[in-house]
Each structure stands twice: as C-alpha cells, then as structure tokens.
C-alpha cells in the first residue's frame, strides 16, 4: 500500500489530533494510562487492540463524551479542555459510535437532519429542503436508501451507512469510526470503502477502529496498537506484517488462571446442521460431545449470540436441524429447548437471566418449578423448594445472606451463579454460556470457570461463547471462530495459540502460510 505518511511525522501543522499523557479511570479499572496519540492530516489511522484495550474510551475522550482524569488533548492545535461535545464538533470532529443511536420511528431524512433541520422563513421545518439535504449526504455513500423510508424498516447495513451520512451533516474534517463494518454486509462494505477513498482524496482525516485485518491493510495508512490502556506502537501499516500486529495486540502470555482439567470426552450429544439464524449467521454446522467444552469466538457482530439464541429458540431461525444424540428435535421456543435439556446463560444476565426484584429462591427454581417443585399440576411444595435451594447455595458456594435475598443486591459473579443454579435445578445437560464472565471480577470468573469444568466432568456438553481469547484458550477443548456470520475456522486448543486465534477472529486466512512467508 502506498503510504507517504510515515515520513511526515513531526510537522506541527499537520498533526490534527494530539493526545498527551491522557489517563482515565473508571471505578475499579484504569482504562487509559498516560496515553500519547497523534493523527496526521489526511491519513486513515487505524486504532487496534483487544476488547478493553481502551480504544473506545480514548475516542470518547477526544470527542468530549468522557473527560480525562489527566493529560491534554489538542485538535488542530486547540486545547479541548473546556470544550463540550458541540464545541469539538465545531472544530470539525465527528464520532460514529458502535451503537448507532438512531430513532427508529423517524424517517431517514429526519434522522440525518436531527437537530439541524432546515427551516423556512416562517420558522417551520422546510421538509422539502430537508429531504434534499439528507439525499445529498446519503448520496455520498450509497444510492440504495430512500430518505423517506422509516429507519426501523432498514437493514443493519443500511442503518450503519445512514449513521455515517448523519455524521457528515456537520461537515467534519476529522471522522472517527468505531467498528463501522461490524454491521455491514459484503456489498455495503464495498460502497463504504469507495466512499472512504473519495473522502480521503478530498482531505478528510479518519480514525478507524476495527477488528478486521483485511480492512486495516486495505484502507489505512498508519496504525496505533493499544493494549491494557497504553500505547504499544504507532507505525505505517506497510511496515508491520499481519502476524506482528497480532503479537503487539496480545503482548506477553498471561499465566494460566483457569482450573482446566482433562475430562473424558464422550459421544456426540448435539449436532447442528445447516443452521441459518434469522438475525445473523449462515450455514452453521458443528457437533458437541458430552464432556466437551466448545468455544465460539469472534468479534462484535460476528453472530455468536445469534447462533446461540437460534439453537435455544430464543430467536427464530430460517432453517436448520438440531439433533440430540442423533434424534432430531424442534426448538422453536425456549420451553421446547428446555424440555430437551438445553440451558442458556444469556449475555445480559440482568435483563435476560434474572428477575432482579425477586428472591434467590424464586430465581433458582423458575425454570423447573412445574417439573420438580409442584404437587399436582401447580401447587408449590415450598419445603421441597427451600431445601433444594439451600443445598444448591451450599454446593455452588453462592454468597447470599439468605435464600430470600433479592438477586439485584448480589454481586455480578454471584448473580451468574444463581443463573447457572437455575439450570442445574432443571436437569439440563447442554449448556450454552454467552459471555458468562463479562463484567465479573477475577475471583468471580475463577468460580464460574470451575463451575463449567464441573459440569463438563458430569458429562454435560458445553458451548462457551466469549470475546476473551485467553479464557477460551485455557478452558475449551475445541474452538470455532466466527467471522461475519459464518464459522470460518475450527481449532483444536492444544494445537493452537493466541496469535493464531486472534488472526482468525480478525478475518485472516491461512495462518500457517502467513507465518511461513515471513
């Protein structure tokens, strides 16, 4: 890739974003540590790093959504210390978030012009001018979307393009894109890159956060790698080979902290064939054996949760067959899946896993209440229920003052154990863990790993979905890598490593060959 940017460092005129020793802490986390960061005029600057490396935090500080604890930020030489979100917009800066913040009921034109509606001389909204203005901005990216359509009717890809068009309304000179292609399909990706090329020629500066190697090498001039809140390196992209980049992102190996033990792996328990989830994902095929922990990894938007939810019947599927021990089963709704022994530990445990204002007891028995704790069709046997809950609290080591404690007052790790206990009560034997350790402290994580290993030892089949490669590598027997809705690689954990895994997560192809070419 031709990049003249490497040799232009140092010229003050040309540095449009300059961050000096920026630090930022959230309760319990140091998100950024004395970070330096520079972007040169007219370049596309890639910002890469694992989840939690600090990419989004840094960008949010630059656009003043967060305020740094220490350090200075200059946009084209102006210190932004006292500027608000609108203030930095006036300096020509615009950020497009991972979550798009669109208003679904309004039309495309209304969303694009939101807060900047053209007015007639009577002070009312000039609808015609608004439509033209929106069409003008949208036309720079795509010709596929009608500005009169409502946003709720658009596909994910179209919404993403729209959000970019909206950012253009302020005529930014610097555009920050946070994983813009996570939602784009192949076709819209291409029109997006074309737009980016043209914008670059017109002198737009772009900061580009992405998890996709191919894109980074295709469109970026320079790259900055962040890890654990510090900057590792900034360099022209053509000076860093792909495998090197992955190494910079990962840093040194972290010592093993997962209580993995080898468990005998049995017969095939679950077979998923030709599954097309309705939401995202295509042609999903895999087997899960009893006693096996199968990891599914992939970046945000790769379609991991969608696959899990389709198998469990939480979301509809277009097609596909699911077999348990060779017998085909229908899982059109969660209660079908539960009858067949499935358990889902959902990604958002507070919104999807627990009834916060109810007790530990009621949360634990909610999936098995009719099956195991009722006399006759529906009379609850409260003694039996309480006894079972107390046993479960003891064996799982759930830190609650009593079974009657409301779950909303428990820590994240303890809440997650309550969710797992719920499924143990209903005798599940295929467990789908969707990001089970998200937002849980180190001790809590350890307990959850231990729980999962125990389940495997008892012969359950386990699907373990996670974004944290370290935990996947140390916990799982086998790993499926998803990219853009498809399973692109299956890896045996024993024969793999973090570099290889991250390489595939970022959409790389043929790791062995790439390494040999060096």
């Amino acid at each position, binding site marked *: 890739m031709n990049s003249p940017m490497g040799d232009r460092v140092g010229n003050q005129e040309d540095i449009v974003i300059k961050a000096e020793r920026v630090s930022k802490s*959230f309760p319990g986390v140091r998100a950024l540590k004395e970070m330096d960061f520079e972007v040169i005029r007219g370049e596309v600057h890639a910002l890469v790093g694992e989840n939690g490396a600090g990419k989004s935090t840094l960008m949010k500080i630059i656009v003043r959504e967060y305020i740094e604890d220490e350090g200075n930020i200059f946009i084209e030489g102006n210190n932004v210390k006292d500027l608000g979100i609108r203030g930095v917009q006036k300096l020509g800066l615009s950020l497009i978030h991972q979550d798009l913040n669109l208003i679904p009921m309004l039309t495309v034109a209304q969303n694009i012009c939101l807060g900047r509606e053209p007015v007639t001389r009577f002070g009312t909204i000039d609808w015609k001018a608004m439509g033209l203005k929106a069409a003008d901005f949208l036309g720079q990216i795509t010709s596929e979307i009608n500005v009169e359509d409502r946003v709720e009717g658009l596909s994910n890809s179209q919404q993403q393009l729209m959000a970019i068009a909206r950012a253009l309304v302020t005529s930014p000179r610097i555009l920050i894109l946070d994983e813009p292609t996570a939602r784009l399909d192949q076709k819209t990706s291409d029109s997006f890159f074309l737009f980016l090329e043209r914008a670059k020629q017109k002198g737009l500066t772009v900061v580009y956060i992405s998890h996709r190697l191919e894109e980074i090498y295709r469109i970026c001039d320079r790259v900055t790698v962040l890890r654990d809140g510090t900057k590792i390196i900034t360099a022209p992209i053509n000076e860093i080979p792909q495998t090197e980049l992955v190494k910079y992102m990962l840093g040194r190996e972290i010592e093993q902290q997962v209580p993995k033990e080898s468990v005998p792996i049995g017969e095939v328990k679950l077979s998923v064939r030709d599954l097309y989830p309705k939401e995202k994902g295509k042609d999903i095929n895999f087997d899960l054996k009893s006693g096996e922990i199968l990891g599914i990894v992939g970046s945000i938007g790769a379609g991991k949760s969608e696959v899990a939810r389709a198998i469990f019947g939480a979301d509809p599927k277009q097609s596909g067959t699911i077999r348990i021990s060779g017998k085909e089963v229908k899982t059109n709704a*969660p209660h079908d899946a539960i009858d067949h022994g499935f358990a889902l530990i959902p990604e958002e445990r507070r919104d999807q*896993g627990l009834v916060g*204002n109810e007790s530990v007891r009621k949360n634990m028995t909610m999936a098995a209440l009719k099956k195991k704790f*009722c006399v006759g069709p529906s009379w609850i046997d409260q003694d039996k229920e309480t006894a079972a809950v107390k046993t479960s609290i003891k064996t799982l080591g759930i830190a609650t003052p009593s079974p009657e404690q409301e779950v909303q007052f428990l820590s994240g790790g303890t809440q997650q154990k309550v969710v797992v206990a719920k499924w143990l009560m209903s005798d599940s034997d295929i467990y789908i863990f969707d990001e089970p350790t998200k937002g849980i402290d180190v001790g809590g994580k350890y307990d959850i790993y231990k729980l999962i290993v125990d389940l495997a030892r008892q012969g359950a089949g386990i699907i373990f979905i996670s974004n944290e490669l370290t935990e996947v590598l140390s916990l799982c027997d086998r790993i499926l890598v998803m990219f853009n809705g498809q399973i692109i690689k299956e890896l045996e954990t024993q024969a793999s490593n973090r570099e290889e895994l991250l390489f595939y997560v970022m959409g790389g192809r043929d790791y062995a060959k790439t390494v040999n070419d060096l």
Partner: protein
Amino acid sequence: MSKSNSSATPSDVRNSGEIETGTPKGNRSIIRYGIFVIFGLFYAIVTILRPGFLSLGNFYDIFIETSIISFVSFGEAIVIAAGGLDLSVGNIAGAAAMLTCHLMSNLGFDLGTSLVAGVAIGGLIGFGNGLMVTRLHMNSLIATLGTMFVLVGFLYGLTGGVTVHIVPENFEYLGNGTIMSIPVPMYFMAFIFILAYLFMEKTSYGRNIRMIGGNIEACRLSGINIKNLTLMTFVLCGFLSTFSGILLAARQALGNVDLGERFLLEAFIAAMLGTVIFDGKNIITGTLLGAIFLISLLNGLTLLGAGPQWMYFAQGGLLLAAILANYYSKRLALKIPGQKK
C-alpha cells in the same frame, strides 16, 4: 460537560458488574409505615370529630362497601402484577350487572342463568383483552381503553339506556341479606380472598405471573409460558370484576348504565396501595388492606360532610401518592453506587 461525564459513569459501574449489598429494606419500609401512620392520623381525627365513625353500624357499612370493591381490585392487582393494566374493569362490572338484571327482569330468565351469563361475559371480555395484548401485541393500556368504550356502547345498546328498577327479591338478597347477622357480600369476599391469595402465593401460576411482572424476557428464556399467563391475568380480572358489578346492582336493587364507572378508580387505588404495602409481595392481602383504607377514607369524609369535590380530590391524590410511593420503593431498591451523583 460534567453532565456528560457523570451520565457515562453509572453504566460503567453497571458494566463492571459489582453492586454493593445495601440495606434498602429499611428505606422501603418507611413508605409502608408512612401509609399506616397517615391513615391512623386520619382515623383519629375523624373519630374525635365524629365518634359515630367507630360504631358497629358504620363498620358494617365499611366492610360491605369494601367487599363490593374487593373483587375488581383483586383482578386489577393480578393484571398489574404481571406488568399490565386494565382500564375496562369498571365497564366489565357494569356490563355484567346490566346483563344479569336485563335477563332477569326484562327477559324473564331465572336468577341462576342470569348470574352465570353475567359472570361469563366478564370472563369473555377479559379473554378478548388478553388476546389483544398477547397475540396482537397491543399495549394493555390502549387495548383496554378501546374495550372500555366498546362496552359503554354495549351498555347503552342493551336496554336503550333505561335503568332496570325491578329486580327479584332473591337477587337483592345477595347484596343486602345477612347470614348469622353478617352481610352476604362479606362471605363472598372472604371466599374469593382465600382463593385469590392461594392462587397468587401458593401456585406456580401466581408465582410466574409475578415473575413476568419482574422481567418478562428472563421468564421467556426460562421456559415460562408468558403469553398464556398474561392472557390468564386478563381473564381472571374480567371474571372477578363481574362479582363487584353484580353485587353492587343487588345492593342497590337496580341496574343502570353507569353503575360500574366508579370501580376503575377505586380498583386502581386499592391495587396500587396493595402493591406498596407489602413491598410488591403478597399483593392480594395488600389489596384488601388498600380497599379497606380507601373505603374508610371515603366513609370518613362523608361523615365529615365533605362534598363530592373533596371525594375526588382525596381519591385522585391517593392514587398519585400510591403510584409515587411505588415508583420510589422501586428506585430505592435499585439504588446502586454511582447513581447518587
């Protein structure tokens, strides 16, 4: 600028997953005891000014009235427990009462048939409400608002708006009779109270209805049949509302088109108080207490000679206070570090 900063912090606290174990129970019971204290003070004042408030005869009045509104209040409380609202309860009660009176007095059906028809129509309307909410995915507030006005049309259509004055004596007995010197409506109330209490507290149906009200998505993902249970709450509510309507008609010995109108407000107040009193638990007992509080308040105001404007001020104020208390007890419960700022 500092605003955007602080608004970002709570979500980060939540993401980091740790909520400290607080002692919100203490805060929440302030609201509950507040209700008891306020009503206690009111009763004391009424008793000093009007000693007749504490007489046995007045107690009977209070309990008969409480009995009549208790059924519709239980129904509303069950719907609210599952996270819905039913605005059509008053008109369901009215429709059931009117239909029963019309069948008996104008068309010459016997008492039993007329009562069964009255109760059945309530269940049927509730079923319709439930279908709109669970199968057509309508907001319960909007769906039942529609039902409410359709029923007004039904009421006028049934007798052309004419009041049914002459009702059989054995029907009147349901509202005014006594058994062992205890008014008949109180027997009904006691019976239905026990059933509703057992249903909500001891069966999986009642348990799951409450769980749905807490977090419907978590319930769906745990295999609970959220659609049928939500439907069930509306059927029960319609069914229970008819008892209130029919007993009121029996007590007044007449059926008229606006008979049930008062029930909507009263049932809401009783159910909202009922939800606050025991902190969202044991809502049936809570609702019964709420109904007693409400009726004795109205009774006390009548004894003090308050005009209708004061009645409405008191009821509206009480409803707002109950909703506010409900909101605050939830807020206190959800209070997490970082939200304080």
